[in-house]
């Protein structure tokens, strides 16, 4: 290629764009290496050839003719002239052509420098991206829950039809705006903003963030917001998908159910309070030796009431999570340890197991009875540990209530309240369809091991105490 100095020649030979120089009659005077490589031709075939004749007239393209014959004669340079053509040697290509007139002292007629960049792949990628985007938009528009796609600067790229319809805004009103700026700023909640800022950089999805507010045209609504990072293969730019689930009706049903539960709980507790009161009233006129029995009865009624609360906190549908239930029992019992018992700790070690809610009360009463016995009798010095544990052994739950106290000196000598406590334990175990595993002799402490069936015994076959 003829260029004024060697450095310019080196540059010309190394640039990735194809370069050719034409004389005023559109004959090719030179081309660079990139041109020969891209169009699979050689200097011999190219130099001196008329541009339209080159390569079996494959450059005789109407768009190129327009550029060379109609545009260039009137302008010193043209940039970004796009030519799409089916080249017999290399197939269909999209070329971006820059043209510039060059005048030199020894060539007063001037030449034309054409820089040709093959942008076929980029254009194909752009078309593919556009098709993908249209597909994504169609999917987005078919989802019934309103959703938006956000850029990493939290501005909206697109909103689904459901979003636009439900919130009564146009696509133009959403694009480029932040979610927090929409409507009457209902989504401008600091906690939500904080969570959204973590979705892309830390890939931390938002799960069920609830917002309740008055929405124009909708009234009071509760929305559940979920967000996650979305990425396109081969593209390092990430976006966020933010979905708005209208849970107003579900929330109302939950609130109604909760209100009903609270009302029933209130009535039950008040009625139990009346029973405790009746017992207290009777105890007032009862001879001293019997008062202890009345008090024990009051405590057990209190335990049943407390268990109902704990069950409601550990219930998963028709079953109760044993581990959570034991934790709640331990917490409630620990909270009641004061004075001489304040050095006693109650710990839980339980596998994630479930029992049916019908058996939860006797199960809780059993644990309560055993743990209360340990607290009352195992620690004369007021310090020690009670461990409540549950694990699956075959098709059974093994419940263990253990303490590191003084141990039972003479198991056969229990009488009065202690004897009744043991009898209650036996009754609860039978009600639960379980067995008490005989304890090994321990140097210190007491271990009570009970095996209960995991599954509920069929109706009518339960081994309930006669």
């Amino acid at each position, binding site marked *: 290629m003829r260029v004024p100095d060697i450095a310019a020649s080196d540059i010309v030979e190394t640039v990735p764009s194809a370069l050719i120089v034409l004389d005023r009659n559109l004959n090719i005077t030179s081309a660079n290496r990139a041109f020969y490589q891209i169009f699979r031709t050689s200097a011999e075939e190219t130099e001196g050839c008329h541009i339209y004749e080159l390569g079996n007239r494959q450059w005789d393209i109407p768009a190129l003719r327009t550029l060379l014959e109609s545009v260039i004669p009137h302008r010193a340079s043209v940039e970004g002239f796009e030519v799409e053509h089916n080249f017999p040697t290399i197939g269909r290509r999209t070329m971006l052509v820059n043209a510039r007139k060059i005048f030199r002292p020894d060539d007063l007629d001037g030449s034309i420098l054409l820089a040709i960049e093959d942008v076929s792949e980029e254009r194909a990628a752009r078309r593919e991206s556009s098709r993908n985007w249209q597909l994504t938009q169609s999917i987005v528009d078919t989802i019934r829950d309103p959703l938006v796609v956000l850029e990493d600067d939290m501005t909206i790229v697109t909103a689904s039809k459901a979003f636009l319809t439900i919130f009564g805004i146009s696509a133009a009103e959403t694009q480029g705006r932040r979610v927090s700026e929409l409507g009457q700023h209902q989504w401008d909640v600091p906690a939500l903003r904080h969570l959204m800022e973590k979705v892309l950089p830390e890939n931390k999805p938002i799960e069920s963030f609830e917002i309740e507010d008055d929405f124009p045209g909708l009234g009071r609504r509760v929305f559940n917001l979920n967000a996650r990072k979305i990425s396109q293969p081969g593209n390092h730019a990430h976006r966020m998908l933010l979905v708005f689930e209208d849970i107003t009706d579900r929330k109302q049903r939950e609130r109604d159910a909760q209100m009903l539960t*609270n009302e029933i*709980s*209130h*009535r*039950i*507790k*008040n009625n*139990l*309070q*009346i*029973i*405790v*009161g*009746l017992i*207290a*009233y009777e*105890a*007032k006129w009862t001879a001293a030796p019997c008062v202890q029995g009345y*008090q024990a009865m*009051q*405590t057990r*009624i*209190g335990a049943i*009431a*407390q268990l109902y*609360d704990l069950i*409601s906190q550990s219930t998963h549908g028709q079953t109760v999570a044993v581990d959570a239930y034991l934790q709640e029992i331990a917490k409630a019992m620990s909270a009641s340890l*004061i004075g001489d018992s304040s050095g006693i700790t109650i710990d839980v070690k339980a596998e994630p197991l479930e029992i049916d809610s019908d058996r939860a009360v006797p199960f809780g009463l059993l644990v309560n009875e055993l743990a209360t016995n340990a607290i009352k009798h195992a620690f004369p010095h007021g310090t020690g540990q009670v461990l409540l544990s549950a694990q699956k052994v075959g098709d059974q739950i093994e419940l263990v209530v253990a303490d590191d106290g003084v141990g039972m000196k003479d198991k056969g000598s229990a009488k009065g309240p202690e004897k009744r406590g043991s009898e209650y334990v036996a009754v609860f175990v039978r009600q639960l369809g379980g067995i008490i595993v005989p304890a090994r002799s321990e140097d210190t402490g007491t271990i009570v091991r009970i095996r209960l069936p995991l599954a509920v015994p069929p109706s009518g076959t339960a081994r309930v105490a006669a």
Partner: protein
Amino acid sequence: MAVILIVEDEVFTREVAEMMIQSWGHQTLSAGDVDEALSCLRSDQRIDLLFTDLYLKSLVLGGCDLARQAIEMRPALRVLYTTGNSVTDKMRALFAAGTQLLRKPYTPHELQDSVGALLAA
């Protein structure tokens, strides 16, 4: 001996609470709703401790409102709430500072401990 105002809309429960508290040597006043309780609190009658149910008749948090007004009138008043309902963190946030909660059903022992602890504070 202390003077304790018991506010409870359940007559039997209120009377049994009175009986228990009197048996420990305290004097009791009683009210069945917020208005009756406020009348007592507005009088010159000495009152050391207010023992009130949270849910009073149709007022879900009637006991909370009553305690707030009572402490405004008598800043030194001790308050013991009671309820059979589950208590949420939102409800706890409405409790006046230095007050205590006794869950229903409470035994005479538990009531005595709570009353004793508040009067000793």
